[in-house]
């Protein structure tokens, strides 16, 4: 049957037959790099048009409808515009850091792609500490924002960066604790093990209410971590004009923009993997017939369907809620989310030991 893993295996076998092992590895790395960059570009285009259409429909507007069929090529046109625009570096800026920051944002987003399973047995790097890797690498993101804010030599940028620093560092905690609930339940840090542990049902259904609470906490925390409204204080438009990327223009701005969307995709993919079974089709315990019917739907469609559903939820938040204030944002984390996730983790641990889950 046609599948991503078959294609990957065929390419691997063909390369292995024609080149020596070192060469094979090099070519495979190049191919993976090209694939990731291609996925990046594709995701950027799709997510931007998706965001614009979602926001338009929620705001009783039509949204972009001029470029291409139903405006579907609008983001492509925007990309071309951003590429040909002048990438301005302010005089007072720390030029090296200013130019480096968008690339760090991009590299972080690319690194996070590594452990994600896009389809059955189709994964760039199935490392045994995949979930830990994701939490660790995603916190580097804040460095690029701080760097951009500091190097811009602009007070608005600096304030945005400082807000973002406080925000991301705080929300890492509850995101991490929510991830831990699933690690406790599945007993593994490896992404593929976590997915296989959901073969008889996704954790969100198997784990009763505690996992549901963990899921909600996770969604809130990652919305904050990716600087999306209602937690977009780092770029709070009406307060700080554009926050940390006030001084960026052209392709450097586009890289930040792209990194934001790719980060949204990645956190949603991780959310889908941990709580909604990743590429695992919708299985119910021991209903063999039902499970087999579900297996006919390709695993990549399951994965992308779940991921895009979560992305839609995050967009839905953005176009409904007002922004929080910085002290309220930190209160929400330290007074509500963190205590709740800690207690929740205890309950889940007890549940895992006593085998109360399905």
């Amino acid at each position, binding site marked *: 049957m046609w599948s991503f893993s078959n294609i990957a295996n065929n390419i691997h076998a063909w390369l292995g037959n024609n080149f020596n092992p070192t060469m094979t590895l090099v070519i495979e790395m190049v191919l993976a790099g090209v694939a990731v960059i291609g996925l990046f570009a594709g995701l950027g285009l799709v997510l931007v048009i998706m965001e614009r259409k979602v926001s338009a429909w929620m705001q009783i*507007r039509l949204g972009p409808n001029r470029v291409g069929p139903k405006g579907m090529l609008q983001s492509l046109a925007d990309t071309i515009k951003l590429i040909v625009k002048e990438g301005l570096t302010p005089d007072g800026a720390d030029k090296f850091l200013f130019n480096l920051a968008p690339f760090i944002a991009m590299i972080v987003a690319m690194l996070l792609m590594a452990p994600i399973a896009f389809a059955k047995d189709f994964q760039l790097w199935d490392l045994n500490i995949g979930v830990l890797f994701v939490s660790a690498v995603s916190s580097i993101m804040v460095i690029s924002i701080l760097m951009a804010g500091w190097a811009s030599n602009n007070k608005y940028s600096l304030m945005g960066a400082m807000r973002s620093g406080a925000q991301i560092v705080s929300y890492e905690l509850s995101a991490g604790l929510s991830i831990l609930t699933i690690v406790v339940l599945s007993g593994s840090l490896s992404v593929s093990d976590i997915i296989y542990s959901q073969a008889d049902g996704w954790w969100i259904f198997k784990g009763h209410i505690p996992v549901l609470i963990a899921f909600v906490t996770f969604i809130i925390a990652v919305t904050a971590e990716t600087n999306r409204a209602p937690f977009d204080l780092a770029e709070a438009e009406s307060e700080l004009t554009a926050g940390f990327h006030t001084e960026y223009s052209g392709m450097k701005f586009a890289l930040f923009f792209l990194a934001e969307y790719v980060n949204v995709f990645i956190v949603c993919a991780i959310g889908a993997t941990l709580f909604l079974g990743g590429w695992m089709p919708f299985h119910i315990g021991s209903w063999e017939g039902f499970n087999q019917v579900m297996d006919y739907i390709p695993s990549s469609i399951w994965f992308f369907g779940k991921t895009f559903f979560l992305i839609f939820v995050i967009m*839905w938040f953005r176009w*409904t809620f007002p922004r929080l204030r910085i002290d309220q944002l930190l209160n929400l984390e330290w007074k509500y989310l963190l205590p709740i996730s800690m207690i929740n983790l205890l309950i889940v641990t007890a549940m895992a030991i006593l085998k109360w889950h399905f």
Partner: protein
Amino acid sequence: MFIKKYIQDIWGAVKSLLTGMRRTMYYFTHHKEIITEQYPDNRDTLQLPERFKGEVVMPHDENNEHRCTGCQACELACPNGTIKVIFKNEINAEGKKKKAIDKLVYHLELCTMCNLCIEACPSDAIKMAQTFEHSVFDRNELTKILNNPGSKIMEGVE
């Protein structure tokens, strides 16, 4: 007691957020509520109300005749100096010299569409048109002469 209040707070907050999300979801799924006007695609069907103040025009009948006597009431009524009346001497049928308008110059670029000139005109010679696409490349084009070339005053208008 503290715990109860804490949980109540959270429940109230979540409920209020879900109410808002239900509202946006309603609009997300109900596309017939969209109010976007597809200008300029709807140019053909676009109906502006007859009182809409777009620009001042001077209607002419089929004989190229207008109703302007050149009384300068509009020029006086205008707060911005938008209208200028330029006269010429015309010899009428009886061989008498008569003052008539040569040009009624209208500066669209100065006009604020306040309608005072129309109100001031005693002979209903000028009116507001419903045009609104006034963009031009050269601002000289905004200085308009309202009476057609060769036009003259209608019989019986004083």
